[in-house]
C-alpha cells in the first residue's frame, strides 16, 4: 500500500472545478425538475383523460428506464432526429426530464395528502379550481412533501455523476482524470466521496431549515 495523499492538494483546484460543475448541473436539474414536476403532477390529477394519459405515460417511461440509457438516448440518439446538444446540455436535460417524473409523483402525493375539505371550503366561497390549488392546496402540499423532496434532491446530486459517461468533466470524471495521471484510485475516490457527502449533507440541512421556517404553527412540526 502506498497511499499518496499529496495528490489531493496538487490537483485540488482541478477537482474543485469538477465539483463546481456538479453543483451547477444538480441545481439547474433540481429547479427544472421541480417546475416540470409541478406541471406533470397537476396533469396527473387532471380529470381530462388525454392530459392524464400523457402525463402518466411520461412518468412511467422515465421511471421505468435507466437514467444512463436516457442520457445516451438524448446525447447520442437525438442527433439522428436532427437535435444536437453539447454534452453538458444533454446531461442537464436528461437529469431534469428524469427528475421531473419523480418530482411529479412527490407533488401528487403531497396534493392528495391534503384533506378534501380544504378544496371544498375554498370552492364553496367561489374561488376557482386554479385559485384554490394555488392559494390553498399547493402551499400545504409542498410543506408536507419537504422530506420527500429532500430525498429526491440528494439522489439527483449523486446521480449527476452519470453524465461523465458522455464526457462532462464533473466531479467524478475529474477524479478519474487525476487517477489516470497518479494511479491513486483509493485516495481520489475517498476524496470525492467526501465532497459528495458535504454537498448532500448541506442539502439536507438547508432543506430542514426551510422546513422549520415554513412549518405551520399549531400542527405537528410547528411549535
Amino acid at each position, binding site marked *: 500500500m502506498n497511499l499518496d495523499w499529496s495528490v489531493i492538494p496538487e490537483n485540488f483546484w482541478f477537482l474543485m472545478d469538477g465539483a463546481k460543475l456538479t453543483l451547477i448541473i444538480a441545481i439547474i436539474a433540481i429547479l427544472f425538475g421541480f417546475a416540470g414536476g409541478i406541471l406533470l403532477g397537476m396533469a396527473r390529477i387532471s380529470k381530462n383523460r388525454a392530459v392524464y394519459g400523457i402525463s402518466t405515460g411520461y412518468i412511467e417511461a422515465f421511471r421505468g428506464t435507466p437514467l444512463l440509457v436516457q442520457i445516451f438516448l438524448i446525447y447520442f440518439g437525438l442527433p439522428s432526429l436532427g437535435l444536437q446538444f453539447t454534452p453538458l446540455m444533454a446531461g442537464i436535460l436528461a437529469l431534469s426530464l428524469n427528475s421531473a417524473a419523480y418530482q411529479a409523483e412527490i407533488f401528487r402525493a403531497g396534493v392528495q395528502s391534503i384533506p378534501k375539505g380544504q378544496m*371544498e371550503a375554498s370552492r364553496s366561497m*367561489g*374561488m376557482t379550481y386554479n385559485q384554490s390549488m394555488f392559494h390553498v392546496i399547493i402551499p400545504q402540499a409542498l410543506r408536507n412533501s419537504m422530506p420527500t423532496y429532500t430525498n429526491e434532491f440528494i439522489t439527483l446530486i449523486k446521480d449527476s455523476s452519470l453524465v461523465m459517461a458522455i464526457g462532462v468533466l464533473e466531479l467524478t470524471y475529474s477524479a478519474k482524470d487525476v487517477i489516470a495521471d497518479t494511479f491513486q484510485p483509493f485516495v481520489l475516490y475517498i476524496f470525492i466521496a467526501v465532497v459528495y457527502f458535504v454537498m448532500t449533507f448541506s442539502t439536507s440541512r438547508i432543506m430542514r431549515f426551510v422546513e422549520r421556517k415554513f412549518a405551520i404553527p399549531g400542527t405537528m412540526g410547528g411549535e
Partner: protein
Amino acid sequence: MATPIIETKDLRMAFGDNEVLKGISMQVMPSQCVVVIGPSGSGKSTLLRCMNHLNEPTGGTILFEGHDIAAEDIDINLIRAQMIMVFQSFNLFMHLTAKKNISLALMKVKGVEQAEAEDMALKMLAKVGLSDKADAYPGQLSGGQQQRVAIARAMAMQPKALLFDEPTSALDPELIGEVLDVMKRLALEGMTMVVVTHEMGFAREMADHVIFMDQGVICEQGPPEEIFVNPKNERTKVFLKRILCQVDAMDPLKPNYEDTSLENGNGTCETAPVAEQSAKEVVKNDARTGLKRWFGLR
C-alpha cells in the same frame, strides 16, 4: 310573493345504484332559517352539498333567486360566493392565520384590496368574539373557535344565504353553545340560513321552517311548533321520540322509565340492512374494476 332565495325542484341524487335523494322539492325564502333534521344517512348533507354544487345532482333543478345554477351561462363560482357552506369539520385553511383565512376569498373572488379585506376580517372576527385570535393559526384554536372563524369567513363574503352542514357535530359538548350562539345571532339579524343539525333545541327555538327527511325524501315539513309538538308522520314521531329519549337518558339524575318500549320499537333498525347491501355492492364493483385499476386506468 317574493322569489325564494333557494328552491329545489324534484332534486335527485344517486351515488352509483345508491339513491340518496329521491325527489326533494323545497323552498327557502329570504331571511328564513330552515332547519333540516333526520336520521343519519337520510340525505340531509347531500342536499346541502347539491345546493352548493359540490355534488352534482343526477336529476331535478336547483334555483338560486330563480336562476338554474346548472345552466350553461351561469358562473357557478359567482353563485357559490353568495351561498356559502359551513362544514362539520370547519375546513379552515391550516396554513393561514384566522385573519388571512377570512381575507383570502375576499381578495381573490371579490377583488377587494388587501388592507380593506383585512379590516373586514377583523370586523368579522370581532362579531364572533375572536378579536384576540386574528393572528392565530387554526391548529392553535379549539374546535368551537375554529368553527366561529369559519362562520366569520363565510359572513365576510356577505352572502345571500349560508348553508350549515352539521356545524356542531364535531365539537365537544361544552363548545357547542358558543357556535350556536353565533348562529342564533345571525338568524336574528335576518340572515337566510339552511341548517342541517341534530341540535333539536336550536331547531325548536330558531327555525322558521323545519324539514324532516328520511331515506331521501321529505317526510314532513312545517313550522317548528307543529313538527315538534304535534308530528303527523309516523317516522317523524319515532325519530323525535328517540332523540328526546337520548337527551333524557344522558341526564344521570333522571330515572330511565321509558326505554324498553322504544328500544324494541319499529324504525330503529331500518337503516341497517340498507347499509349492508350497499357494502356488498361495493365489493362486487371492486372486483369488476380491479383489473382496470391495476393498469392505472380509470
